């Protein structure tokens, strides 16, 4: 297992990239700690698969270096990196039995048959397929096939990292949960470094210790699920994570106050002068209705989703959402919204701005 470091890494699929737009992956520096479970989260086409393929060596980056435990592996072929990868669509060798599938990576590396047999047995137990070892892989269900691909990765004891490229896409919903749980317990038990690419925030947040959020070829935030929720570093994170996402309102910032269309909104800290387009971001969880204070809103719809209600509303032409507890009565005359000052974030040109003094946390 190893610590993986990406230095000034960038990639373009074009032979001679000119502008930043030509890069599928814009320059980034990132450390993946040994033994941690990461999720790489972003919408499709944001560059997460590109990043994954660079780590596994299926792609060579246009610029920058990739280090495993400080050793430069940028030019090393996939096989030398000792990486395992599970793909979106299950890849199994149809004509082989489950046992042969699991033994395949070790056999290719010329390992001793006794050792192979022992590892195959161990891995079959980990993925719970001991009783199906002699079956042909053809005709197995998608989740069984995905387990085999996972097993093929884990069969190599010295594997540096396990990479997952949206591995649950073709799995039935109820099996998704089971496989994810199994992955998590395997991670606890064996401590592999895991990088899990997904566009599904639930998958990312439940699986990972740390989530790397990507947007438009850029890593916009690396953090624990809680950090992503409370302090989204970029408006995209705020909008992408959470259901519904963060409310964003154009505002001018003066010291510890924000003004939305001239109406005063208190902030949790004091901010210096800001350049560019400024907005305030508040999660629906930290907004509540009021009769006489805050910003005027018009409620357009109320959705009851079980544990709570989502109020869809308009505030100066911007759609916002407010969460209300299940039992909470919604007064008919409520026409204003109040935000919890400690949880109002300030963004300048889409990036989070830290208060100059008076921490909000």
């Amino acid at each position, binding site marked *: 297992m190893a610590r993986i470091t990406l230095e000034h890494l960038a990639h373009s699929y074009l032979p001679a990239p000119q502008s930043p737009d030509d890069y599928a992956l814009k320059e980034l520096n990132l450390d993946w700690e040994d033994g941690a479970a990461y999720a790489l989260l972003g919408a499709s086409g944001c560059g997460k698969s590109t990043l994954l393929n660079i780590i596994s060596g299926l792609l060579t980056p246009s610029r920058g270096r990739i280090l495993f435990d400080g050793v430069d592996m940028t030019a090393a072929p996939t096989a030398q990196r000792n*990486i395992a*990868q599970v793909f979106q*669509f299950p*890849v199994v060798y149809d004509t082989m039995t489950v046992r042969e599938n699991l033994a*395949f990576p070790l056999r*290719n590396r010329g390992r001793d048959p006794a050792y192979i047999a022992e590892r195959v047995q161990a891995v079959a137990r980990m993925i719970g397929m001991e009783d199906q070892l002699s079956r042909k892989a*053809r005709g197995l269900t998608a989740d069984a096939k995905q387990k085999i691909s996972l097993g093929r990765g884990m069969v190599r004891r010295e594997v540096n990292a396990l990479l997952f490229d949206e591995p649950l896409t073709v799995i039935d919903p109820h099996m998704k949960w089971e496989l994810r749980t199994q992955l998590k317990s395997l991670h606890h038990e064996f401590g592999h470094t895991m990088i899990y690419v997904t566009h599904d925030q639930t998958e990312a947040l439940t699986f990972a210790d740390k989530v790397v959020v990507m947007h438009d070829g850029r890593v916009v935030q690396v953090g624990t699920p809680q950090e992503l929720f409370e302090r989204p570093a970029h408006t995209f994170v705020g909008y992408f994570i959470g259901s519904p996402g963060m409310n964003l309102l154009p505002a001018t910032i003066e010291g510890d106050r924000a003004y939305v269309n001239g109406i005063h909104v208190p902030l949790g800290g004091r901010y210096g002068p800001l350049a560019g387009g400024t907005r305030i971001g508040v999660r629906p969880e930290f907004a509540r209705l009021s009769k006489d204070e805050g910003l005027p809103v018009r409620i357009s719809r109320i959705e009851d989703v079980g544990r709570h209600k989502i109020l869809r509303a308009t505030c100066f032409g911007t759609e916002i959402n407010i969460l209300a507890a299940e039992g909470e009565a919604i007064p008919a005359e409520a026409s204003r919204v109040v935000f919890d000052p400690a949880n109002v974030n300030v963004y300048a040109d889409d990036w989070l701005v830290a208060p100059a003094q008076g921490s909000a946390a």
Partner: protein
Amino acid sequence: MEKTVNHKAWFLVLPVLVLVAFSAVIPLMTVVNYSVQDTFGQNQFFWAGLNWFRETLASERMWDALGRQLVFSGIILAIEVPLGILVALSMPKKGVWASVCLVLMALPLLIPWNVVGTIWQIFGREDIGLLGYTLNALGVDYNYTQGFFAAWTTVIVMDVWHWTSLVALLAYAGLQSIPNAYYQAARIDQASRWAVFRYIELPKMQGVLMIAVLLRFMDSFMIYTEPFVVTGGGPGNATTFLSIDLVKMALGQFDLGPAAAFSLMYFLVILLVSYVFYTVMVNMEKREGK
């Protein structure tokens, strides 16, 4: 896909049925009719029972032609299938060159069969053909109208030239259907080139290769025009395959009875072999579909 039971579907098949019956059943009945009759000319026929069949089965001529035919089909399958796979594996996967290769490769398939014969007839001649001239200049005694070995080689090389592309294009289509993830997984598993071929590419090509083998077997078993133009079945009877022999018998010597009996048995052999292929293929499709 689940199919619905609907006997009215017969109406949809009716046009095909009528057309093919007109083109196949009536002529086939004629053949059957001839096969059990004898004639002394002037359109006078009389019942000959199974005599022609007995005679044909006993005739060395038919067994020789069948033997030659089997050897020929066996050889060209043994060459064209591996060569076609090799070519498919060597083809560029995308881009302009892929299109160029595809177009050039498909070219021999669209040339009328007798022109294929003419091309090789010319190409192989020792006086005006590039191949024949070069070989003879190199001191090889090559003359496809006289040498047994030269005639066979020419006919086989011609068939390889003519049809390998069909196998290659089918195999290529199979290869194109393999998702990139399979190759990536193989790299991660450190699979050798051979292992990639054996465990990824070959299984995915299996279906189309069966079609290729079936088509090549059927068509090579019926081959007539190309060798007829080049060698005329000679030297002697060296390249007289079943169809050539049959046409000689039926149209050349007008031995309708034996020719008809011969035809029917010929057809039966093809049917039998093809049926085996077909059954295997359908079973395979069923298994894959599961």
